[in-house]
């Protein structure tokens, strides 16, 4: 009979190989599709594209609305992140450091945007905007993103606030620090990683968000996800979609790696693996 650790190793190796292929093959295919030379097509008997070039990237950059979409996405996300943490921080402070009646319920209510189906929120938010005669798509989507993703920011920040050491706060006061001095000595070091993590998660989610951007933005205000959808839905242009998919996914994966690091330092319990 095969020994258990050996069986484990074999199973793990098989699964790891499958999962790596499962990720590598689709991305490799997307990369190849994005680099298919527009002059020579890639069709059935060829396993690999006959000719590779960056021609498609150049055409997309110069002629499509990708540039505008990227500008829109990347001007929404940083502002949404900023506003979400500014508006969310007081709530996070209350959740993390204060006790009050109804706190449990308040914390659950904070999750409503996550639980409600995204397209329901998007459509009826749009309906409200129609009634109000509100026409700035940028600000509408911005407000939507702030509200939709604030729960994530509040969650991270309230953990950070709860980790501020009371004794350090008292010590700072005891030594005569001003309110700002107390903040800098006791609060800032504890919440700094959490603030960055909260900002980043809102940023990443805002870049990826599709429902609101699609329902409220289309057809005039494009973001990277809506332009990707336009190449996947109405008329399927695979090489273009491949370019946009890579533009969408690569920066976010890099940011997520940063986020992962930050989350570990934001929550020391994660690092020690104790719990």
């Amino acid at each position: 009979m095969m020994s258990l650790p050996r069986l484990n190793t074999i199973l793990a190796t098989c699964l790891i190989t499958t999962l790596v292929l499962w990720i590598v093959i689709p991305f490799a295919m997307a990369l190849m599709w994005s680099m298919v030379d527009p002059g020579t097509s890639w069709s059935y008997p060829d396993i690999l594209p006959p000719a590779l070039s960056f021609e498609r990237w150049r055409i997309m950059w110069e002629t499509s609305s990708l540039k505008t979409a990227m500008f829109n996405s990347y001007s929404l996300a940083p502002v949404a992140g900023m506003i979400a943490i500014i508006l969310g921080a007081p709530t996070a402070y209350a959740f993390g450091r204060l006790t009050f009646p109804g706190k449990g319920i308040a914390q659950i209510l904070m999750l409503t945007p996550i639980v409600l189906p995204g397209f329901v929120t998007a459509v009826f938010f749009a309906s409200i905007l129609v009634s109000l005669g509100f026409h700035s798509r940028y600000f509408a989507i911005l407000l939507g993103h702030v509200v939709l993703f604030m729960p994530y920011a509040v969650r991270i920040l309230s953990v950070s606030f709860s980790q501020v050491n009371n004794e350090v706060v008292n010590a700072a006061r005891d030594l005569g620090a001003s309110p700002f001095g107390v903040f800098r000595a006791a609060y800032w070091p504890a919440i700094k990683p959490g603030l960055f993590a909260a900002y980043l998660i809102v940023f990443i989610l805002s870049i990826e968000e599709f429902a609101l951007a699609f329902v409220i933005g289309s057809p005039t205000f494009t973001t990277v996800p809506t332009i990707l959808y336009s190449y996947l839905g109405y008329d399927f242009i695979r090489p273009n979609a491949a370019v946009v998919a890579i533009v969408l996914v690569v920066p976010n994966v890099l940011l997520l790696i940063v986020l992962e690091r930050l989350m570990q330092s934001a929550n020391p319990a994660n690092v020690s693996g104790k719990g």
Partner: protein
Amino acid sequence: MPNGLRIILLLTPGLGLVMTLMIWVLYRAFAQSFGLYNFNGDDLLTLSHWQGMFQNRRYWNALEWSGYIAVVSATLAVAVAYPLVIWLRRPFKGSFLLSALIKAPYFVPGLVAAFLLINVISYHGFVNEFLIWIGVWDQPVRMQNDKNGYAIIGLQVWKQLPLAFLLLSGAVAAIPDNVLHAAQDLGAGTWDRFRKVVLPMTVTAMQASLILIFIGAAGDFTFQAVAGPTRENSLATLMVTYQGASYSDWNGAAVIGVTLMVLSLLGSIVFAALVQIVAKLMERV
């Protein structure tokens, strides 16, 4: 400053803003489904939009389809995640890499995931070319937009598995080794330890995973629009169709939206109850 006022002031910009908008949106959906805020005519409190939808085959098909996709996706994702979590409870060589790979899809946006899958299963995609190359198939098989929605379910499971994995592994990691040792010491073998200790102690996480995945899959638009069968609609795609330029029937869309929320709520209740019952039965057996 009195404490109550201070807390209200603290909560206003965050929770206050979120609740205002969410309640407004919810109210708007309910009100429009009953004929208020009618953009194409007079506001009139009426059941006619509901009645109209109830006579519409597309509505029932979409409800059935979304329910089917959501039930199958949630069940499958948890059924796959649970054994993986148990297996990876104790670290071994490669287990860290393995759990990182399982969590990876969480980082891929839904639209990109759908596009990637299409590339792999399309007529000239990797699977077809590979299977023809090794000689299993003589010609490409059409797998894209299959009529049973396997592509959507596959995408849902792929995308949502990390969520179930994270929630469940958190719960399993929270079971102290000593408690399992105590059970073993009192005569519980592997299977008994699972059904009498591990299962009851992970019920909440399992309910949470099932509910979140069910809600996510029931409200799906992207996967349905990109990889779903062309003849079917999910509730979300149907709702957007009604609201969109060609119909501009906001009240009809509201009926579908409210239906989707009711489906999410009912699905959550049913799944939570089922898990509870199964866990209790397993404990008794």
